């Protein structure tokens, strides 16, 4: 049961701290998002720069880069996903434990970016896995990546624990495993996961 915001502030002034389980739970989750140590291309260098002294990602509780997908909460798809690499990215995503989030960092991860017309370039990682935050840029500046983290934190904060819109990891019927595409004779098979992505309608 939600408590009125004004009452909560008033109680806080009196030294009574009131919260909901949902708030506490989400606060804990959003304050320790551990990304996977996983760099694909140019954007990975900006990702490293973000964790270094100047931009200091540690302020957001996200400086612990885990090399193993089992220990990570967040996959930052930092760079061009090629068709040769896409099966591995999906497999890594499948190996991550719930709750898990994905940031598509940079133009390439979003849509293929400047390399979109390449024969070996996947036109956006959201064709195979669900993406929570997109940050444009080629590469995005470290500030942009921090912005993505803050957006993700806001998103986690707003996730209800029950009801229709509850996150995937609290929903027993939700899809947990995403099909891994197979490299075939000329292209990846299937070229996209219809359960995750369908071509947007271009309005001209």
């Amino acid at each position, binding site marked *: 049961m939600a408590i009125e915001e004004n009452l909560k502030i008033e109680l806080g002034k009196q030294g009574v701290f009131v919260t909901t389980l949902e708030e506490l739970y989400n606060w804990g989750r959003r304050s320790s998002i551990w990304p996977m*140590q*996983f*760099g*694909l*291309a*140019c954007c*990975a*260098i*900006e990702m*490293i*720069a973000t964790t*270094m*002294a*100047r931009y200091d990602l540690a302020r957001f509780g996200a400086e612990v880069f885990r*090399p193993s*997908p089992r220990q990570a909460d967040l996959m930052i798809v930092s*760079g*061009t996903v*090629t068709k*040769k*690499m896409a099966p*591995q990215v999906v497999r*890594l995503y499948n190996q991550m434990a719930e709750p898990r989030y994905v940031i598509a960092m940079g133009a*390439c991860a979003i849509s293929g970016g*400047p*390399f979109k*017309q*390449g*024969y*070996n*370039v996947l036109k956006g990682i959201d064709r195979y896995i669900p993406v929570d935050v997109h940050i444009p840029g*080629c*590469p995005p*500046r470290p500030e942009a990546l921090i912005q993505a983290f803050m957006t993700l934190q806001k998103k986690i904060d707003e996730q209800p624990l029950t009801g229709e819109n509850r996150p995937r990891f609290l929903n027993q019927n939700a899809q947990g495993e995403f099909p891994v595409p197979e490299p075939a004779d000329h292209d990846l098979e299937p070229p996209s996961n219809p359960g995750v992505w369908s071509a947007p309608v271009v309005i001209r």
Partner: protein
Amino acid sequence: MSIAETKTEKLDGWNRPPTMEPEGEGELLEIAMGPHHPSTHGVFRMDVTLDGERVMRLKPVFGYLHRNHEKIAEGAAYLASMPYTDRLDYFCSLSNNWAYALAVEKLVGQAVPERAQYIRVILAELTRIQNHASSIGFLIQEMGASGTPLMYAFREREKILDLFESLTGSRMMCNYMRFGGCRVDVSAAWLASARKVVAGLPAFVDEFEALLTTNEILMARCQGVGVLKPDLAVNASVTGPLLRASGVNYDIRKVDRYGIYDRFKFRVPLGDHGDVYDRYMVRVLEMRESIRILEQALPEIPAGPIMDPKAKIRGFRPKPGEAYGRIEAPKGELGFYLISDGSPNPYRYRVRPPSLINLTILEDMCLGQNVADVVLIFGSVDIVLGEVDR
């Protein structure tokens, strides 16, 4: 033993790395390191066969970042490929710009004004310093010094990136050079801040060296590991600091004297043993020589135009022919080979990637070493996957 004594007579047997015989009767273990591995600098895979801790066989697997740079460039106008060259070796976009501009300038016989030449040298040497600093940082990180040396390197790198950003508008993807000059002029204020950054660099290298050069762990891990003999290095087309660490005196800045490198006094550091430690040392010394070049170039930069007034910008169609232009990029010889058929697009556009070719002898260097040293030897090659796979 100095490397001069190990001169091998027979070259023809060298097209394959030697076959290793397992010791004892243990089972061989095959592991795939990568493409997701924290020490592979990106998406690179090594299929390693191990006998206990010893490496028996190592096969690199590429292509996880093959993003069709050459094919896209063949469908685009000459200048349209300039931003793509930034994304080859994304640590050194300005060196890549220069190599491509140089190749096209050779193709059309384009002169470059004095001031632009100076700007190019200054930017290329700044790029070299930040590349070597970060590459040493990554090397030490792979040795287990998680974070600290890399933080020192990136602290300095940020200062240099600030210079790039204020001049070109982007931290990493500078897209700055043009055929026959540069895109924007440097201001007096920029030169002043560049001088300030350069004045602080020797102290940084001293600090870096004080932490690392005589560090006991670093010496124990690096000395005598991953030895590369000079004649094999030459035969395998290895270039850059990796070649010079093996004692071969070949620096394209000295050999080709491209740009205006003949005006500056600098030395070419050479290694004596060809091991990981020598590669580290050569990079540190190259940073010092780059600082020396910068100290000479920054005060004497002349006034004048930054673009050749005769340079053709619109309707750029080189006459049929071909050209191969190369520079000494921080990773090695970066070359561009262009074939023109008279149309606005190159008929053939080929990048000679130093990172890929330097990996030719990765297996030879790793055979018989411990598996923990593989990441170290691999780190000492200093590759960037954007350039390996293009």
